């Protein structure tokens, strides 16, 4: 394709090609400082193509193509090209990943142990993870958690954090403006802005971590926390995984082993409360481990 960029995010290499220069330029700028794929070989290819040949110039319209595609995907405007590239990478992982068990989750790490935040879209997982990443935790990822079925360890996949609407302002107050991608308005999900993880997250992207606490956050309720049993956790995680079924026995073993990790559901009315709850539960989980 005319324009392309290759980059490695954790253990996965991507090549993103595009009929237009702008999306590739925006992607390269957003991922400044990221390594190239190992041996220059990408695991997945994404291609941003015109929906019809003349749509390369007239009211440019992007079809997201690649090694794996969803035929029902709505085309995207050229102004949202960076978002199209990100969605394309998400799609390759969701449909094509067969080695790692994928969980729709945000993960942060401290002392070699991972905190996994999982649950419905819109619960605020990305924002919480981004904030924790600026408060003494290392961000491992905000969209996908990669679980090694053989070892049970989580591997980092630190993509640019996708912030929506109000969350953009929250993070803009916290971090250097240079880490942000362009403001994209009028997307199917409202206003979106991407935030590059900090230097530590990029530098340490090849360090795995042991799962230590699973949290199911829910926004908009009075502060509360309750333990979640293993069977319920297992069931919820099968729904949070894009490739549990495809991995067969390995997926079953990986997930049944993962649910030995303590799990809790937390409700929170605002992010400050959420951060307090997270720290309190993390300390609690450490104490259970120390006592065991």
């Amino acid at each position, binding site marked *: 394709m005319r324009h392309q960029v290759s980059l490695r995010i954790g253990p996965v290499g991507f090549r993103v090609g595009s009929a237009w220069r702008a999306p590739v330029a925006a992607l390269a700028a957003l991922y400044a400082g990221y390594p190239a794929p190992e041996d220059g070989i990408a695991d997945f290819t994404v291609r941003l193509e015109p929906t019809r040949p003349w749509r390369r110039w007239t009211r440019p319209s992007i079809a997201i193509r690649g090694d794996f595609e969803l035929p029902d995907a709505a085309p995207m405007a050229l102004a949202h090209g960076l978002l199209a590239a990100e969605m394309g990478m998400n799609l390759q992982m969701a449909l094509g990943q067969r080695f790692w068990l994928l969980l729709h989750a945000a993960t942060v790490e401290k002392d070699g142990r991972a905190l996994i935040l999982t649950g419905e879209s819109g619960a605020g997982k990305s924002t919480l993870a981004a904030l924790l990443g600026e408060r003494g935790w290392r961000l491992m990822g905000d969209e996908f958690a990669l679980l090694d079925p053989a070892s049970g360890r989580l591997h980092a996949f630190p993509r640019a954090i996708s912030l929506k609407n109000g969350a953009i302002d929250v993070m803009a107050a916290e971090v250097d403006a240079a880490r942000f991608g362009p403001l994209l308005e009028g997307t199917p999900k409202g206003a979106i802005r991407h935030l590059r993880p900090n230097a530590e997250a990029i530098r340490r992207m090849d360090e795995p971590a042991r799962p230590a606490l699973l949290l199911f956050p829910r926004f908009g309720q009075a502060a509360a926390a309750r333990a979640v049993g293993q069977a319920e956790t297992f*069931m919820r995680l099968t729904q949070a995984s894009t490739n549990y079924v495809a991995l067969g026995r390995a997926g079953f073993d990986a997930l049944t082993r993962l649910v030995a990790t303590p799990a809790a559901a937390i409700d929170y009315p605002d992010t400050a409360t959420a951060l307090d709850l997270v720290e309190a539960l993390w300390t609690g989980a450490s104490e259970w481990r120390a006592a065991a």
Partner: protein
Amino acid sequence: MSAPEEPEAKGFVASRRTVLALGAVAASTVVTVRPALAQTAGSIMACEIPVPGPHAAGSYIASDGTTVPPGTPGAAPPLSRPLTGEEAKVLLRGSTPPGVSPQAAQAYANYIRRLQAGMSGFTCYASLQMPR
């Protein structure tokens, strides 16, 4: 596999055996995991449903949602552009969007409900069904 409850008096010679409840006749004791691809892929991108799909381009939609030859009496015309996920949800709720007759709305809704795996628009429909 061992039974669910341990005997209470472990220190004694067990003359009491483990209790097993059989469950109410109407109870559900087996839950099968259903794949969640549609939900997670659907949360990843906006989707659309062409009515009818490319396999039946130009066909009209009968009130039961099947495709029929153009001009069939009582059938709704094909849509000039694909439905967005939001528009599909409106139709599936039974509402009539502006510019469409109630009969046509019902025909389109039934067409969507008849979509099967492999047909254009199916993963979009499936992702609309998943609880968010």
